[in-house]
């Protein structure tokens, strides 16, 4: 039973310890328990932390709005084809998400099929571009994460007894009222799970900012900073401190979720 501890907890401790060290990659790092590393890392990268949180929030809201009707329709009207629909929704996962993101950079490129076509028929000015903007980054993250928004929503909507809706209608509720007063409140556990499963990876993402944002000014996120500190600058303490902040954010979210609904709902699938 200790493997999980060995393979998860120990690296976490290693990261925590590294985040408090000082030194440089050339001279080596010493443990000095310098907690100021955290405040330094955050204040030096406040812009990126803020942008990640904002992008994460936008992605979560957009993904929820996109996903809810899909999950609702499959759960209530999918009939015999529910599994077929779920299979189709999972089809993109058979292609590595880096390659899917690269495909979006093709689709959205200045002379690509979407913008190129719109430009050639004169609907867009020639100088118009999407790549290298925050819009492209947010759209990319949303695309990559929306299946993770749909699945928990679907699971909770599927468990709702359709007879409850009928009962509401028998009591003269309109379709909209039946949805607002019966279906939506019952699906709230799924909404919470979807928010958690979408916002956490969205905040930590750096692939979309790199591929679709192309490191244009104003698009990089905190993940890009962590990646650069770890893999290029080898300033491990700063990267570790930032990653630790992300982890702390996530644990807070997870604890709130576990308090509200219990972990077994997720781990027992």
């Amino acid at each position, binding site marked *: 039973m200790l493997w999980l501890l060995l393979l998860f907890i120990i690296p976490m401790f290693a990261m925590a310890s590294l985040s408090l060290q000082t030194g440089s990659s050339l001279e080596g790092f010493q443990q000095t328990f310098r907690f100021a590393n955290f405040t330094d890392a955050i204040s030096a990268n406040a812009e990126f932390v803020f942008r990640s949180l904002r992008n994460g929030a936008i992605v979560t809201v957009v993904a929820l709005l996109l996903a809810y009707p899909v999950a609702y329709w499959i759960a209530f009207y999918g009939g015999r084809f529910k599994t077929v629909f779920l299979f189709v929704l999972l089809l993109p996962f058979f292609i590595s998400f880096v390659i899917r993101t690269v495909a979006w950079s093709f689709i959205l490129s200045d002379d690509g099929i979407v913008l190129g076509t719109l430009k050639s028929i004169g609907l867009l000015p020639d100088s118009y571009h999407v790549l290298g903007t925050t819009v492209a980054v947010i759209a990319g993250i949303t695309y990559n994460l929306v299946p993770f928004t749909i699945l928990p929503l679907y699971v909770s909507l599927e468990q709702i007894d359709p007879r409850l809706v*009928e009962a509401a209608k028998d009591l003269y509720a309109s379709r909209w009222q039946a949805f607002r007063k019966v279906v939506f409140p019952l699906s709230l556990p799924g909404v919470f799970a979807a928010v958690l499963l979408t916002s956490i990876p969205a905040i930590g993402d750096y692939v979309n900012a790199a591929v679709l944002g192309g490191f244009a000014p104003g698009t990089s996120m905190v993940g890009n900073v962590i990646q650069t500190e770890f893999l290029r600058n080898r300033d491990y303490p700063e990267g570790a401190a930032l*990653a630790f902040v992300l982890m702390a954010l*996530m644990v807070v979210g997870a604890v709130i979720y576990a308090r509200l609904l219990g972990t077994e709902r997720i781990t027992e699938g």
Partner: protein
Amino acid sequence: MSAVATEPERGLDRPAAARGPRKRWTRFVLPGYVTAFILYLCFPIFIIILFSFNQTRGGFGTSPRVKTTWLGFTGEWYSRLFELPDLTASLRHSLTVAFASALAATVLGTLLGLALARHRFRGRGTSDFVIFLSISAPEIVLGAALASFFVSLGLPRGLGTLILSHTMFSIAFVTVTVRARAAGLDPSLEAAAMDLGAGPATAFVKVTLPLLAPGILAGFLLAFALSMDDFVISQFTQGPATMFPTWVFGSTRVGIPPHVFAFATIIFVTGATLALALALAQRRRRA
């Protein structure tokens, strides 16, 4: 299951239809939206497959790059698949790591899943929470933690650290899959085997393991697929050994060779066909 589910659904539709033809067009809004959404989700796949057959116009000496505009149909890239040694090596790394880590994660995850389903022990709640955390933690945090770990130990990063890291993140998924299967298992079956003279080991191998097999297989395939797809953790733990997704990411700056799209198409078709075949086989067995 479906018989119960479809019966009240017909009832759901009735009031809407009774409201007359004026409201009828709204019936198509939701299905239309779902169709559009599915097309949106699958659009990049379509583009990848299409552009794997696209011609390029490259200069001499430089390797070809995929062009963003359509230049004409060619099957060339499929006949030149293994032309780029770095790309081929990265695919070999990905397959090796996926196979080794899925195997390790399946063994460890099965034992953990069984323990969690069967026994109430001290620290059960904690392991539950740790599983939950390692499934939902952002990949970049796992990657940074593992990189910190390897840096602190002074372990050189390469295929070994990759296999270790991939095993680590796959265990939780195997555990959850096996546990779901084990929870539905009647423990008296094992007891019955032991009553009939089987030792605990024999009862486990002859009774419990075959009953768990579908869960274990699903866990293995999930771990394999997750490992093949993983980018973030690989990038943090790979060192000089590149994996397929990290190689592709690295080449985005200079342009993607069309071979990448050809490989992606082959992987997609193989994976989707395999999953479909498994699902159909399972359905037939149940029927």
